[in-house]
Every structure is written in structure tokens, then in C-alpha cells.
């Protein structure tokens, strides 16, 4: 469904992405781990169209989208939750989702309402539907990132550290939710997370990135046992 080939992204002299190949099939659940500054968020930015790659190509559902704008990709079915939440501060929680449902989701008014109410309920924000988004705390903002991305009715969900800072009970809820979205609704998920034990409960595949490169890509157990992964990431993070 999504294929990235030889993706490079330079920031001045720094190669944040240095030839990344990644393939996501419909219904996949893929985790991405790696040390700080490995280029994980940058990869998500390139996949979502927020930034353009310096070289390489990205295709989605068989279409070349390397230079397609972010809003076009959102309408094609790529939903994205930012690492640092970016709510629409002057609008209510419900309205934040409504924007996603009515534009990226392409839903008409009634259907958009239903969609928003559903995703707010799913992400535990129903009580806060009428609150201005700039009054939310960090964890609520992260939930809103997820809810707003879901409102766009995505086929591929790109999640960037939405689980950081959760209690055990909360992360268990999150795991159940993402599993449901993936297994029941068939949404492909790419999930960046430092908390590896949470991640492996959901994903069937793990990608480890280091210095803008994919170091390992495969079955989670095998990747975590990979000596290079242990040296480059797990050793330092002591996860």
C-alpha cells in the first residue's frame, strides 16, 4: 500500500534520512524504534507529505505521491498524529475532529458528526467534546491527535509517540484501541514509540532506525535480539 524507496532528506549538512526503504501493506501493524535523532519523525513527515524528500520516492496505493501535498495525501487516506501535538487551539475538541472528518474524510455533515462522536468516544474524549482545545493538558492533546487523525477515516495511520507519559492502565487501553483499529477495522498502522514493551503488544513487525538508516526490519523478537539493534539502541535506552 505504501512504498518508500531510497528516501533521503538532508537538513544542511545533516542527512536526517539516508536512503530509507520501507514497505507497508494493507492491514500491517509496524513499529518504528530508534534512538533520539534517528530520523523517525522525519520519515513520518516525508510519508505524510509535510516535508519533501531530497531524493527517493514514495508511493501510496499504487500512485506516486513523492511530491503530492500533505492535504492531498490526507484525502487519499493517510492519517497522522504528531509527536508534539498540534491542536487547533481556538476550536473545540469536537470541531477539531469535524475539520478532519469533513475534509480528509470527505464526509457530509451528518456522517461527519457521527464519525466525530464515534472517534471521540473511542479515544476517551467524549466528555471534553465542547472544550476549547487550547485548554487541554498534554495527554488530552495527544488523544486529540489520534482522534482527529481517525476522524479523517484513514487507511493508513501514522502515529508518533502517542503513548509517552501514560500510566500502565492508560497504555493498556491504548494498546486495545490500536489493536481494534488494526485488526477489526483493517487500518494499517505505523507506530513510533520508545516504550518497546507496549509497542510489541500491537505490532507484527518492528523497524529499527539509526542515523537516518533502517538498521533492522522484521519480526519483533528477531529485531530485538539483533546484536546491532542492542548495541545501537537498546543498550543506550536500556528498554
Amino acid at each position, binding site marked *: 500500500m505504501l512504498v518508500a524507496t531510497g528516501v533521503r532528506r538532508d537538513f544542511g549538512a545533516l542527512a536526517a534520512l539516508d536512503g530509507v526503504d520501507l514497505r507497508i501493506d494493507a492491514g500491517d501493524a509496524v513499529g518504528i524504534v530508534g534512538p533520539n535523532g534517528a530520523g523517525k519523525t522525519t520519515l513520518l513527515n516525508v510519508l505524510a507529505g509535510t516535508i519533501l524528500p531530497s531524493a527517493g520516492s514514495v508511493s501510496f496505493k499504487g500512485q506516486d505521491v513523492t511530491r503530492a501535498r500533505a492535504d492531498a495525501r*490526507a484525502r487519499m487516506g493517510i492519517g497522522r498524529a504528531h509527536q508534539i501535538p*498540534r491542536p487547533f487551539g481556538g*476550536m473545540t475538541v469536537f470541531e477539531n475532529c469535524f*475539520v478532519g472528518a469533513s475534509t480528509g474524510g470527505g464526509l457530509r455533515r451528518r456522517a461527519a458528526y457521527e464519525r466525530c*462522536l464515534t472517534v471521540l468516544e473511542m479515544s476517551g474524549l*467524549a466528555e471534553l467534546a465542547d472544550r476549547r482545545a487550547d485548554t487541554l493538558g498534554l495527554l488530552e492533546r495527544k488523544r486529540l491527535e489520534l482522534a482527529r487523525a481517525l476522524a479523517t477515516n484513514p*487507511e493508513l495511520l501514522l502515529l508518533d509517540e502517542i503513548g509517552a507519559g501514560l500510566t500502565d492502565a492508560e497504555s493498556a487501553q491504548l494498546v486495545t484501541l490500536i489493536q481494534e483499529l488494526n485488526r477489526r477495522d483493517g487500518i494499517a498502522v505505523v507506530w513510533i514509540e520508545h516504550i518497546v514493551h507496549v509497542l510489541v503488544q500491537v505490532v507484527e513487525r518492528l523497524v529499527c532506525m539509526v542515523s537516518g538508516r533502517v538498521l533492522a526490519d522484521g519480526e519483533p523478537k528477531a529485531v530485538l535480539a539483533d546484536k546491532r539493534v542492542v548495541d545501537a539502541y537498546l543498550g543506550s535506552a536500556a528498554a
Partner: protein
Amino acid sequence: MEPQTDTRTGAAPEPAAALAAGQVSRWTRLSAGFTGGLGVVVLLLALVPVAMGATLVQDLTTLLILVLMATMWNALAGYGGLVSVGLQAYIGLGAYATVWFSLQGVDPYWGMVLATLFCAVVALPLSFLVLRFRGAQFAIGTWVVAEAIGIYVGLDNQLGAGTGISLVQLDSYATSTREHITYWLTLALTTFFSVIVFMLLRGRLGASLQAIRDDEQAAASVGVRVVSAKRILFILASAGCGAAGAMTAANILFVQPTAIFSVNYSAFMIFMVLVGGIGTFEGPIVGAVILYFIQQQFGNDGTWYLIGLGAVAILFAVFLPRGLWGLLEERTGLRFMPLGYRVRRRARELR
């Protein structure tokens, strides 16, 4: 409510019985009453020339023009995040286009309507230039465009060059008839543009525009067509300011390039919107009334006067960023216009 249909993936809809437990409402008794009240005010205003004297009619014309300008600046900045210091370009063009159409033998009042359309047409190509800019660049960029247009118009001898030109064609109307028609047309245009803004904000585009205002990149990431949404708003605001300029020409019967293309208009618009309440529908109206009374009191010109307005506007921006109307809404928790969405939670087992 019908079950949500998943148009793209064909995935099974969520089990709505357990999940979608709420109802979305937009009108409340208060907002219906308030909106209806505004409608009544417009009707009463339409009767003013019949019942009242000439001074009030002229004063109200001035006030309505201020309301129109403030509403347009607020639509652009308060809902689209596009802070412009160059809308005087369209005020000037609207005024001069009215003169030009009148010189071509068009009835001046029809000329004012055509001038409004003309400003929308001019704004389309210009939008491709200025919408490349963001933030302060956009503010300054639109100002530069306004100055350039002002200078260009001031070079045209047919339009009176730098000294200006009278709208003599309006002399064919008797004074009171002229004042009445000018007033009614101003009321009609101000109402028209307010209603357009109202409908725009209530529609899906309104939500998208506010999203752009709050975070352009995040708006794009959920699928908002950022540039076209801004373009629609920019053209609307340009047309509205064109109408305000045309009515200004009718109101003062004389246009002069440095005055009608003056950046002071931007200062006035910013003042009205910041004081009244940016990002609220009612705020610009409140701000216009306040500026109107200040102008009655202290005149309309002079360096210190403008510095004073600017200082007040800055104080508001810093200490009361949502303006007087925003303060009222915050204090009372009430929404007077049905522009947002309210979710009423419904008992789960109802579905």
C-alpha cells in the same frame, strides 16, 4: 441519525449503539433570538431614511461602512489567520472604479456594484502573489501591493491624478434622494457581506479556515485545501473592501489617491477588530461603533490620534486578546451566534 457510512474503505461502521452517544446542535434559543434580533435591526435600519433626518442618515452611512470594513478584516485575520495591512488597496480601487464606471456613462450606483465585482476580479490574480507569503511577510506584502496600486492610480490624469476627482455624476440626483440611496445601498452591501461571512463560517469551509488560522500545517495534515480556502476568503474580503471604498466615494463625493489608499484604513480596521473582538462575528460591529464615536469626538486624522488608536489596539492585543465581545462571551459562557458546534451527550442505551 443514520449510521455513518464508510465511503472509502468499505470497512464496517463502528457499532454505533455502543459508541456514538451524542447529538450535535448548532442553534440554541439564545442564538436563534440573537440572530433574529440582528435581522430586525437591519429592517429597522432600512426604515431610518423614512423616519429620521439627514444627519442621522449620513452618520449611519459612515458607521455602516466602518462595520463592513471591520467585518472584512476580521474575516481575513480572525478566521483565516491572514493579517493584512493592505486592504486599503481595494478600498481605493472600489472608489476609483466607481469613478471610472461613472465616467464611462454608467449610473454611479450601478458603478458601485460593478466596482465591488471589479475588486473581486483584481484580487484573484493578486492572491497568487500575496498568498505565497506567511505572517508578517503577508502583512507587509499586501501593504506594498496597496502602495503600488495607489501610486499607479495617482498617475492617471483621466482620474484626476494626484489631486483627486469628484463623483460629479451623483449630482444628477437630488441631494436627499442621493443620501437615501447611498444609505440604502451601503446597508444592503454591508448586510450582504455579513450574511456571506456568516454562511461561510457556518459551512464546512468555516471550520477549515479556523483550522488554518490555528495551525496551517496541522490543517493540511487532516486534508484541508489550505491555499484554495485562503484564496476564497481573500477574494471575499477584497470585494467587501471594494464595496466599502465605493460607498466611501458616494458618501464623501470626492476621491483622492493618498487619502483613499491610505494605510490609515488598515489602522482603523485593526483597531475595530482588536477592540471589538477578533475571531467573533459580533466583535467588529462593536469595534466599529466604538471607533465611530471616537471619530466623532476626536476627528479622523492627525498623528497623535493615530498613535493613540494604535496604542489602544496594542493594549487590547496584549491584555484582552479576544476583545470586548470575547470578554463578554468568556464571562457569560454564552455564544450569541450559531457558528460553532455543541455536543449533547445522549444516554448510551438510546441507540
